């Protein structure tokens, strides 16, 4: 194996994994505050389509990403209002958000399917994805705000009793998660595979959700998990292209199996769940109770 080949493989792994890191870290922050948002896939799709359409109309990459992130804020804001103020069930609302996002993105993008655009180099975003993970890790474990956010996710009643605004913190966490998912989507439609196609995220939102569990709610582990997933996917492609006889199907499903194994392992021990999962995850917060 030549050094160019290895560098090439690493480049492809980095490009392919970055959207998972963005969506995974966004969802992690949301879940750390005690809210489970299953709408990742839908928000990614809406982020992808708004970025693409904005780019086609304005020709400006900056606006494209800005509008996309704004769309993520709006989508997740809608979710936040429903689950935080109207106390709707988080799981059902999140699923509805995904279904809504799939439909909305298809509708918004109908006229723009097959419009050719010039893709943007992915490298800025690849580096940014590492920066954001280390920033979030620092934020959680080295800052007071991070501690408060985690406290809200662990026990909202205690946090409330101490005078922290549970609703406000959760709202902001959800918006952050939404904007990261939209960023992941816009990265896909503008850098990774520069085009708009309905449903083009092809299930990456669900993988991001699984990654958060796989990472047992730790930021650096989201990064590691994402790279295990991306790495296995790209490496098995390389092995196939080298003509090695090996079961490609197995490696296609390997990351999913790994997630299930981790799920089984952490759920087999109640203490381990308590140590890792935010204790108030999916539990609605009623003020004054």
């Amino acid at each position: 194996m030549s050094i160019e080949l290895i560098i090439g493989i690493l480049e492809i792994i980095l490009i392919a994994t970055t959207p998972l890191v963005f969506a995974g870290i966004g969802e992690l922050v949301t879940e750390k505050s005690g809210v489970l948002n299953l709408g990742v896939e839908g928000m990614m799709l809406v982020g992808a389509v708004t970025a693409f359409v904005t780019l086609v109309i304005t020709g400006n990459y900056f606006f494209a990403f800005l509008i996309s992130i704004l769309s993520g804020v709006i989508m997740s804001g809608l979710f936040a209002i429903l689950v935080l103020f109207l106390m709707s069930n988080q799981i059902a609302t999140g699923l509805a958000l995904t279904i809504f996002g799939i439909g909305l993105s298809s509708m918004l993008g109908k006229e723009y399917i097959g419009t050719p655009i010039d893709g943007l180099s992915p490298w800025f975003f690849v580096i940014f994805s590492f920066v954001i993970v280390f920033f979030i890790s620092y934020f959680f474990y080295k800052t007071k705000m991070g501690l408060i956010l985690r406290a809200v996710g662990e026990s909202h009643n205690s946090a409330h009793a101490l005078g922290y605004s549970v609703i406000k913190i959760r709202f902001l966490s959800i918006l952050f998660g939404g904007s990261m998912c939209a960023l992941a989507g816009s990265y896909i439609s503008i850098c990774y595979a520069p085009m708009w196609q309905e449903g083009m995220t092809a299930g990456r939102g669900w993988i991001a959700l699984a990654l958060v569990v796989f990472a047992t709610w730790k930021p650096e582990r989201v990064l590691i998990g994402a790279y295990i997933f991306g790495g296995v996917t790209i490496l098995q492609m390389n092995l196939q292209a080298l003509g090695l006889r090996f079961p490609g199907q197995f490696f296609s499903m390997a990351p999913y199996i790994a997630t299930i194994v981790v799920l089984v392992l952490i759920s087999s021990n109640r203490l381990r769940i308590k140590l890792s999962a935010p204790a108030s995850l999916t539990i609605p917060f009623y003020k004054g109770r």
Partner: protein
Amino acid sequence: MIKFITFIATFLVFAFGSAKAEPKKVGFIYIGPPGDHGWTYMHDVGRKYMESQLGDSITSTYIENVPENADAVRAIRKLADSGHDLIFTTSFNYMDQTHEVAKDFPDVKFEHATGYIQADNVATYSARFYEGRMIEGHIAGHMSKTGTIGYIASFPIPEVVRGINAFYLAAAKVNPDIKMKIIWVFTWYDPGKEADAANTLINQGADIIVQHTDTYAPCQAAQKAGVFAFGQASNQEEFCPDAHLTSIEDIWGPYYADRAKAVVDGTWSSGDTWDGMDKGMVVMSPYNTKLMPASLIQEAVNMEVGIKDGTLHPFTGPIYNQAGELVVPDGEVAPDGMLLGMNFYVQGIDGEVPQ
């Protein structure tokens, strides 16, 4: 009395007239969105052509993005339940689901694309895409400088394996040292993964990308890397003008119009249709004159003529399998039965078909 007769006559005209004009309903099940500019797009082009040909005698609907699992049963049943007379299920892996629903609706006609099992009310139809693969292989043999072809395959079904073999046989005839690198992505539709596969193949030295997946992401990746590519299912030149050599286009319209007309006329019967270039079901996109020498384009056009008049067949013996056994004797062509069930690589291709 005359008034009464007029009344009755008017009544009859209205009653039977309107009954006669009741349009037949034609439904389609799509694996992807009609906007994929690939497989599903071409089925939708076919559907629209059918509508334009038959006018008011039919109406048509489609359900898009139907996964190849139990969801497909629900989608097909939904169409059958809502009074559709003819239902096209346009992906190979809808086979069991189509037959499951067809059993419960003996009066509804079903057409399963690329399938091989028929029933009284289930016909199958497909196009001989491998004829186009032969031409692509010939072009690739001439155009590749590294002698390495990158092939993005979807699922290990005969249809895809046949395309790989037809491509390789033609390419190896031009350049016996040609190497094929094949990546199975186990999806029809995932622009990101398709781009990953293309980039992986290019990274490993392929300078021509062939795809059997549904979006133009591989062609785009080829354009970016400065190598050549063949599009899939529809003409994809506008997305990658500096890479796109040609595409195999699937032309379903005339078949759909034919079958819908048969339902309108009440002459529909089950059967198996497998047409190719001679019937216009498989068409090559305009060859890229900027990238290909005129002599090569002429050769490709001559091959089209040969395939159409039957003097040229992609699977003409001697053909050996990987174990070195003669599977098609010298001078003979592979029978359709062998082509339909093809699950082995021919001699010269590395690796093995995933089982």
